[in-house]
């Protein structure tokens, strides 16, 4: 058993050392395809977790005009609190908000010299999530109000970005994946051609067909797997660089939920590469290994 396995692995290794250029093409194409797929996957994961974190709050954020008087804001608060759909209205004064912001960013930057740029804010909770849209609309008509944000709108935006990335990302990476499949298929075809004598000898001495084809299938799986490994390395590195950049440029983004865990990106890209490589290689072996 062990000897059989060793023989097959040995043959696989011999295959992989032939046709250097073709191996390079097959591996690099699967790398590129999997990089794209991995990035799309990670973006979608991030957007999904952002979206997931949103709808649990039935809240509307109401920002007052910059020059609105405190009494006006308090009056609005009472007026809103009187609405039957509204459960709670909480006032966060610009001073409180600014203090919070300064505390949150304490170790990243010193904001103490800056003038307070923030307006007074009301946080309105409705009794039911369906009431958010209607209540938002009514609040928007108030004179003191500069802007109204509710999570449903943000959610809709996140979802539409996510949909866009899903479609374009997956169709482009699907195309690339297809070309990786074709390249691996071709690489295996060339290896089979360059090893016709071996195949013939194995066939004449009565080696099982599986033992004859397996090294070629494994070769494709290794090409795909290496592609997956390189791709996950690049994707993770890229994600790290982007998040380093964004968290220094826009520190508040750190408050968003985190990205996909490292090991799952690695495992799924490698598994996908192995699967696709092995699959197209076994097609090629089935087709070109004449026994």
């Amino acid at each position, binding site marked *: 058993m062990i*000897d*059989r396995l060793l*023989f097959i692995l040995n043959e696989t290794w011999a295959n992989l050392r032939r046709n250097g250029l073709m191996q390079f093409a097959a591996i690099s194409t699967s790398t590129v395809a999997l990089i794209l797929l991995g990035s799309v996957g990670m973006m979608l994961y991030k957007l999904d977790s952002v979206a997931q974190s949103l709808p649990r709050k039935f809240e509307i954020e109401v920002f007052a005009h910059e020059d609105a008087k405190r009494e006006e804001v308090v009056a609005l608060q009472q007026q809103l609190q009187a609405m039957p759909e509204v459960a709670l209205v909480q006032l966060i004064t610009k001073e409180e908000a600014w203090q919070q912001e300064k505390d949150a960013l304490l170790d990243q930057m010193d904001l103490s010299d800056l003038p307070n740029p923030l307006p007074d804010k009301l946080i309105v909770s409705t009794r039911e999530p369906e009431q958010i849209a209607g209540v938002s609309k009514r609040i928007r008509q108030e004179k003191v109000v500069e802007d109204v944000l509710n999570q449903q709108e943000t959610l809709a935006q996140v979802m539409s970005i996510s949909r866009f990335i899903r479609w374009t990302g997956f169709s482009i990476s699907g195309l690339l994946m297809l070309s990786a499949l074709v390249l691996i298929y071709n690489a295996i075809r060339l290896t089979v051609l360059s090893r016709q*004598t*071996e195949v*013939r*000898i*194995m*066939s*004449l*001495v*009565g*080696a*099982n*067909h599986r*033992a*004859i084809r397996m090294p070629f299938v494994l070769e494709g799986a290794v090409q795909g797997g290496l592609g997956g490994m390189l791709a996950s390395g690049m994707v993770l590195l890229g994600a790290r660089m982007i998040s380093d950049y964004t968290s220094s440029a826009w520190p508040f983004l750190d408050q968003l939920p985190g990205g996909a865990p490292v090991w799952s990106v690695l495992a799924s890209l490698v598994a996908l590469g192995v699967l696709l490589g092995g699959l197209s290689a076994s097609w090629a072996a089935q087709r070109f290994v004449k*026994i």
Partner: protein
Amino acid sequence: MVQFQDVSVIYGESFALSRVNLCVEPGEFVFLVGATGAGKSTMLRLMYGDLKPTRGQVMIYGQNITNLKPTGIPKLRRGMGIVPQDYALLPRKNVWENIAYGLRAIGYSQREVHRRVAHALALVGMSSEAKSKPDELSGGEAQRVAIARAIANNAPLLIADEPTANLDPETSWDITLLLQQINLRGATVIVSTHNPAIVDRLKKRVVAMENGEIISDTPSGSYPGEIERARISVATLRR
């Protein structure tokens, strides 16, 4: 051991073999002779399952292989040794590795491979060339290596297609003696050739073919003169 019953092989319109009957008993040494295109290779390929008869039955070791599924072919071939006409040696591997390759492909353990390669090399008289690469060998030596690979599995049947085709007369005779020696050790040997000198000299059974038919079947021990007289019309019906 090997039995053909009314076997025909048809390529398109033309008969490569036409209603051939043949029976080879265990322990026999059989020459298959005939001009180019007579159908010798076709006969041998039928025996190791590389070709299916268009009509008739082929039996090996009493097993009907006429309708053998592709998955049954490896087992059939592990029960015989096949020497291909072109030697089929791997140029990058040395003599030892070439023989070991075939054994490892069918799953022998390292130790068993070692033992069998040494034994096969000794049998064909190539032990001292174990480290040579195929391009350093003469034609006769390469043929010995190909034979060693075929007998390394110790199969009871050895099939060789024109093993002397590219060799000078003396080397051809050496190879023939080697095949005879393998036969004397107990294996049934079936050899195709178009070399009449060797056939006449060894005095083994001779099956002569022409245009896909067996035209004579001469038992072993006959002398050249007797071959003519013994040229019996075997169960080959002309179309």
